[in-house]
């Protein structure tokens, strides 16, 4: 059983930082797509993709939001690539306490890229006429046990909530919510 392989689709955005022209169309359309109702407003500060840019250092890096992390990294490294010095955070996708990126401006809640669920490809990719963002799907074979079932997924989510708020509070909340229903 355990050595049986399953196929899994990995969605990725291939980012070519040399092609980025710094226009931030990706931020515009991302925030518009995720507005409620769709496209009813836009606000780059809500975008799940950000162009980390420092024109005078020729640094243009589109980064899309990954996981929320409760704590910032212990060390901050610098990378020198082709003579340009990059802060490690420039490549990091986390919504993290050390920076303003990937948080709702009003509530501070973390933002995460969902690859524009329901669209053929993420809209940031479609709107990037500079081709700095290219959408790719690749199939990867993974051992079946690596594929999370829905149940496992749910448990994982609850575990992290429990870690943050304490199991007791989660149970209380679930109880209260089910009463409201």
């Amino acid at each position, binding site marked *: 059983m355990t050595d049986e392989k399953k196929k899994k689709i990995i969605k990725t955005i291939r980012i070519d930082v040399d092609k980025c*022209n*710094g*226009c*931030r*169309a990706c931020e*515009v*359309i991302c925030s*518009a797509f995720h*507005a409620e*109702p*769709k*496209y*009813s*407003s*836009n*606000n*780059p*500060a*809500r975008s799940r993709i950000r162009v980390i840019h*420092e*024109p*005078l250092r*020729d640094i*243009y890096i589109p980064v899309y939001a990954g996981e929320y992390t409760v704590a910032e990294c212990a060390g901050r490294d610098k990378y020198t690539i082709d003579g340009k010095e990059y802060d490690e955070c420039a490549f990091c996708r986390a919504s993290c306490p050390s920076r*303003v990126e990937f948080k709702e*401006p009003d509530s501070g809640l973390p933002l995460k890229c969902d690859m524009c669920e329901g669209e053929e490809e993420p809209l940031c990719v479609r*709107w*990037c*006429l*500079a081709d700095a963002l290219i959408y790719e799907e690749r199939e990867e074979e993974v051992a079946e046990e690596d594929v999370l079932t829905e149940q496992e997924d749910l448990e994982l989510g609850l575990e992290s909530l429990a870690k943050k708020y304490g199991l007791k509070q989660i149970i209380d909340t679930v109880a209260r919510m089910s009463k409201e229903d």
Partner: protein
Amino acid sequence: MRYAETGFNLEIDLTRGNIEKVATDPKDTAMHLGGLGTNAKILWDRVPPEVDPFSPENLLIFSTGLLCGTPATGCNRTIVATISPQTQLLAYSMMGGFLAPELKYAGYDKVIFRGKSPGLVYLWIHDDKVEIRDAAHLQGMGTLETAERIREELGEPKAQVAAIGLAGEKRVYYASIEHGRSSASRGGIGAVMGDKGLKAIAVRGTKDVNIASPERYFELCNEVLKYIQHRAENPIKGVPPILAGIGSPQEMAIHDEKWHTTSFAWGNARHRRKDFWTKEIARQWRETQEKAVERLISCYNCPMKCGAIISYPALGVSKYMMKCYSKLTYVMGAMADDLEFGFKIAGLAQEYGVDGYTAPQVMAFAVELYEAGILTDKELPGFPADNQERFFWLLEKIVRREGIGEVLAKGTYWAAREIGNGAEAYDRNTIKKHEQIPIKLGMLNPVYFLMYSTGAKINITQIEGQMPQVPFATREEREEFVKDWIQAPNEKIKEFFVNWELRGENSFPYYPTPEMTCEIVEWQETMHYIDDAVGLCAGLSSFPIKPPYHIHNIPQFIAAATGMEMDEDKLWEITRRNRTLIRAINARRGLRRKDEKPPQDHWKKRFPELEAKLLDSYYRFKGWNEEGIPTRETLAKLGLDYVGADLMERGILADGEDAASAEAPAEAPAQKETN
């Protein structure tokens, strides 16, 4: 809820240090849209003609366009307006970049400055938090450096900054406001900013901009993106490479400068160098440009790469950003064959904050006066022998207003008159006291005659339009061209174009006829008034041939974004209103027919009778009297009765007649060229 616009302006009184957030009247949006339109309304209402440009009562308005901050590609222009110290008329200059959208996200459509600060300050806007901050430590600092310093001290790397340099602080009449790779340069608005003691404005916004019909708007935006891709794959045939695409002329990407260097005049708008572009120059210039350009960059939400990061340490200038034509203006002004010189001096000039069109012309003018013996070593002590060095020398004098720089800081028109001794004859490339792009051509072009003479931007380089500037050689080519010319406002314009010949009866100067010319001009200027009100970049709309935005789709954008009812007719009417209101502001400040003329030698072949007829036809077409002042009837039809009443009261319009009153403040009755 207000859509596309925020519905709030910031009113900043620099004298008292007072800051107010003021709700705007949606009726003004319905009448004037926004941007330049509502700027004009405010200037008409609040800056009477008695107000001197350098008086606390003059206003300096930073405005977003109506559609800035919405997802529409290329809607990112900041429209700055004030009264110009150089022309004494309304000055408005637009810049791209990132400022206007940021201001919208902060929750404001405009920032209106009045008064004068006792010390140098800058304004910091962070959503609802707005403060006037001390800028004493930024005094004399370069524009780019100022922006970096402000971002650093605020701890806000995302703040967008527009700043003046030393030239603005010293009130040089052609000081610019610089913002990264963009600048609002024309008309001396940087000098007004300096006069107000305002070094910079810094903005950070994190609020939403709302759209009335989201799905529809998204659809329209996608159509525009698709057309931009289509145009990238289909350059216009039969025109030089620099005119074949869209966006601003692609000066940073394209090396082939044959068209500019051989068609435009060098020196003080003096020499054509028709055989300049040799293989050797082409090779050298390509090499220099490839060395200098580190990356092609864009304005906010626009795929066109009209700007570049210039990094050329060997030249001894720090890294900066450049766009468009300043690459060539200093080179050609200094008669330098060396593109490296252009990249070097432009970087320095940008830090000082001077207009890249006017500054090199003033310098070329000074060089000519020196060579003619009108200026001597007495006025120019230590003036170098080498032309390139002379330009650096002059730049330093001008931005400090030192020695001859004091006079030259006012531009060629005023400097020529102060220097005297025959210097006036060397003021040969200004319109309404403002330096123009140095083009000297053979045969009068009636369309450009009218646009040069009457344009309120007083700046031909930004009023070029979607109609090709010269006809294509064969009828077949012209017929081919109009086949997919979806941007033409109507069939008539297409017909004008198809019948337009290089030679013979249907050629310049008598074709297009004055009547046709009026319609072509009306269309081309309408597109600019639309762009400047909604904040669209001319490079995607009014400026290039076959752009993605045009008279047929922009009304739909406005309707879907704002929820206002809008169609083509309404949009024409609003732009006519804005055009007429600006005309009235300038008429009230003394603008008359006699001022409406291109530089005398702009065309070798001039036709005084035809030109008079062109002006007459155009004024009539516009509903203006023969002095070029809008009549009461025209004003009333556009809902500007109050403007008519004011012009009557001031005696600029008289009862029962459409002509200007004899008491009009014009310097002298118009000198008509014929009759």
